[in-house]
C-alpha cells in the first residue's frame, strides 16, 4: 500500500530544491536561444551571391577597411551603459518583494542607489558623458 501511495505522490515544486525553477528557466532559455540560432540555418533558403556577402554601406562599395582602431570613447560609453543597466536590472528582484522586505529592503536599496549615484556624479563631472 505504501508503495502505491509513494508512487501516487504528486511531484510538487515545494519539495524541490529552491533553485529548481531557476534551473528549468535557464534550460528553457538556453534551448530556445539555441533553436533560434540553428533553425534558420537548417530550414531557411540559402541563395548566396558575391554582393550579398560584402559589407553594406548605404548602397555603395565599402570605402575603407573597418579594421581601423576604434576610439576609446566607444568603450567608455559601453562600460557606463553596462554599469547603469545592471543597476536598473537589480531593482526588479527588490521591486517584486518590496512589501515583504519592508523597511530593511528599502534602506538596502537606497544605499545601493546612493553609492551608484556618487559614481554617476563623478562620471558626469569628469565629462564622461560628453563626447568631446
Amino acid at each position, binding site marked *: 500500500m505504501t508503495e502505491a501511495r509513494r508512487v501516487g505522490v504528486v511531484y510538487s515544486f515545494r519539495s524541490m530544491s529552491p533553485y529548481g525553477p531557476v534551473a528549468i528557466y535557464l534550460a528553457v532559455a538556453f534551448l530556445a536561444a539555441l533553436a533560434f540560432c540553428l533553425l534558420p540555418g537548417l*530550414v531557411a533558403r540559402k541563395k548566396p551571391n558575391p554582393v*550579398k556577402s560584402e559589407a*553594406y554601406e548605404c548602397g555603395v562599395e565599402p570605402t575603407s577597411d573597418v579594421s581601423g582602431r576604434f576610439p576609446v570613447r566607444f568603450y567608455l560609453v559601453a562600460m557606463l551603459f553596462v554599469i547603469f543597466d545592471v543597476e536598473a536590472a537589480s531593482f526588479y528582484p527588490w521591486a517584486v518583494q518590496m512589501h515583504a522586505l519592508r523597511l530593511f529592503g528599502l534602506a538596502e536599496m537606497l544605499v545601493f542607489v546612493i553609492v551608484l549615484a556618487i559614481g554617476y556624479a563623478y562620471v558626469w563631472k569628469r565629462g564622461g558623458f560628453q563626447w568631446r
Partner: protein
Amino acid sequence: MALGSGGDFLLTTVDSVARWAQSSSVWPLTMGLACCAIEMMTATAPEYDIARLGSEVFRASPRQADLMIVSGRVAQKMGPIVKRLYDQMADPKWVISMGACASSGGVFDNYAIVQGVDTIIPVDVYVPGCPPTPDGLLYAVNLIQQQIKQGGRGGILARA
C-alpha cells in the same frame, strides 16, 4: 530531406504558417527616391496607415527588409546602387515598382533615367500613377501579400 507522407503534411502546415507570418509582416526598405517617396510616406501617415497591413516598419538596412519599394525615378547614377541594395537583401524578397518613372521611365524618356527598373532588378508588382495615390501603394502591398500566401517565393518549401 526525404519525408514520408506524414512528413509532407507536417511541412505543408508549417509552410502555410510560415507564409501567413511572412505575408502579415512584409517590411519595406527605406529607399525613397523622388515624388513617389512622399506618397509612400503619406501611406504611413494616419489617413492611409500602412500599419493595417503590417508594413509600417521601414527597415533602413536591406538585411532586415523583405520588400523593396522603388519609389521614384531611378537615375543612371542610382541604378547600380539599387541593384546592389537588391542583391544585399535577404531572400525571399519582393519588389514593388511604384509609379510610372520606376516602371517605365514615365514622362522622362531621356538619357538620365533608367527606362524601367525591371531592366535591372526583377519586379513583382507595378503600381501605375504619377505619383500613385497611397491607396495604390496599399493595394500593391496587398497584392504582394496575396502572392506570398498563394505560392511562389516565401514559405519554407519553395526553393525558388
